[in-house]
C-alpha cells in the first residue's frame, strides 16, 4: 500500500468500514510511514475531539411539552381543513386546468360560429343557382347527375386557343 492509497482510506478506517485484510495493510503502512502516521493521528484526533464534545441534556419535561402541543394542533387542523380543503399545491394546477378547459370551449364555439357564418354566406351567394337547380330537380339530368361522365381534364378548345396564341 502506498501513501495515497493509505490516506484515501482514512474515512473508512475511522468509520470501521474496512475489511480485515485492508485494515491490516493500512495499519502496517501507518506504523512504517512517519508522514502517513502523523496525518492519521491528526485526522483521528480531530474526529475524536469532535465526538468528545458533550451533548446537551433535553429538559426533563420536553416530551410532556411536545405532547401538550398535540391537542392544540388537533384543534387547529380541522379548522384549517375546513377553510382550505385542497392542499395548496393543487390550487395552481387545478386553476390552470379549469382556465384551459374554459379557453378550449371558447375556441371551439368560436370556430363553430365562423364555420356556420361562412356556410350562410356561401348559401346567400349561390342562392340563385340553388333555386335554379331546384327548378331542374324534376328533370332526369338532375336526378342522374352522378351517372354523367365527368368532363375531360383538358379542354380541347382552350388548348387550341393557347396553341394559336403561342404561334
Amino acid at each position, binding site marked *: 500500500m502506498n501513501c495515497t492509497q493509505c490516506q484515501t482510506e482514512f474515512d473508512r478506517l475511522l468509520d470501521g468500514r474496512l475489511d480485515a485484510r485492508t485494515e491490516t495493510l493500512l495499519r502496517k503502512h501507518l506504523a512504517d510511514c512517519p508522514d502517513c502516521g502523523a496525518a492519521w493521528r*491528526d485526522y483521528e484526533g480531530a474526529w475524536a475531539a469532535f465526538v468528545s464534545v458533550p451533548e446537551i441534556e433535553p429538559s426533563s419535561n420536553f416530551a410532556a411539552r411536545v405532547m401538550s402541543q*398535540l391537542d392544540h394542533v388537533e384543534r387547529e387542523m380541522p379548522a384549517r381543513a375546513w377553510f382550505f380543503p385542497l392542499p395548496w399545491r393543487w390550487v395552481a394546477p387545478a386553476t390552470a386546468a379549469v382556465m384551459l378547459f374554459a379557453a378550449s370551449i371558447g375556441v371551439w364555439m368560436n370556430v363553430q360560429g365562423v364555420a356556420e357564418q361562412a356556410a350562410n354566406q356561401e348559401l346567400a351567394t349561390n342562392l340563385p343557382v340553388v333555386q335554379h337547380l331546384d327548378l331542374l330537380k324534376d328533370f332526369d339530368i338532375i336526378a342522374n347527375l352522378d351517372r354523367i361522365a365527368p368532363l375531360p381534364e383538358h379542354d380541347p378548345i382552350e388548348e387550341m386557343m393557347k396553341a394559336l396564341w403561342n404561334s
Partner: protein
Amino acid sequence: MSFDPDTELMLKVSRGNRAAFEALVVKYQRVVINTIYRSVGDPAEAEDLAQNVFVQVWKSRSRYKPTAKFSTWLFTIVRNMCLNEVRRRARHPADSLDKPIVDGAEGGESVWQVPDQRAKPPSEEALAAELRKRVDTALAALPETQRTAMLLLRHQNMPYEEIAKVMRCSLSATKSVIHRARAILRDQLKPYLRP
C-alpha cells in the same frame, strides 16, 4: 411485511396512536435537540425548534409512507427546520448562524488564534474547555451540508446511504462532503490537539 421498530411505531402514529408518538419523542429527543443545537448554537432555541420538529411529525403523520427508515424521514424534517432557521436569520443578519462564535470580553480575538507558547501551561480542564470551544467554532464555520452530514454521522451514527437520502445527494457526494468536513476540522483543530 415487517419494518424496523421505529417505522412500526410511526405506522401506529399515522393511525393517531399518541403513545407510539410519545415513545418516538422520548427516543429521539436527545439526538434531535443536539443536532439542532450544533446548528443554531443556543440550547433554548434548539429545544423550541425540536418541539416544532415533533409537532410537524404529528401533523404530517397521515402522509408518512414507510418507504424509508423513520430516522431518515425525521432528520429530513430536522434539516429543513434548520435550513428555514438559517434563512430566517439571513434576513436578520444580527442573529446570523454563520457569524463565528467569538470568545473573550473584548470580542475582537481572532477565532483561529494560535495559543501563546510563552504562557504558563494551562490546566487539563482549561485545555479541554478550550478544545470544546474550538470544536464548536469549527463546526459553526462549516458549510451547512458538511455540518449536517457530520452531525448525522456523530449523533445518530447514521450510515452514509441514509445521510445521502437526508441530504438529497448521491452516496459518492456524501462521502466527499464528509471527507472534506473532516479535513477542515483537522486543519482547524490541529493546533489544539495533543502532539
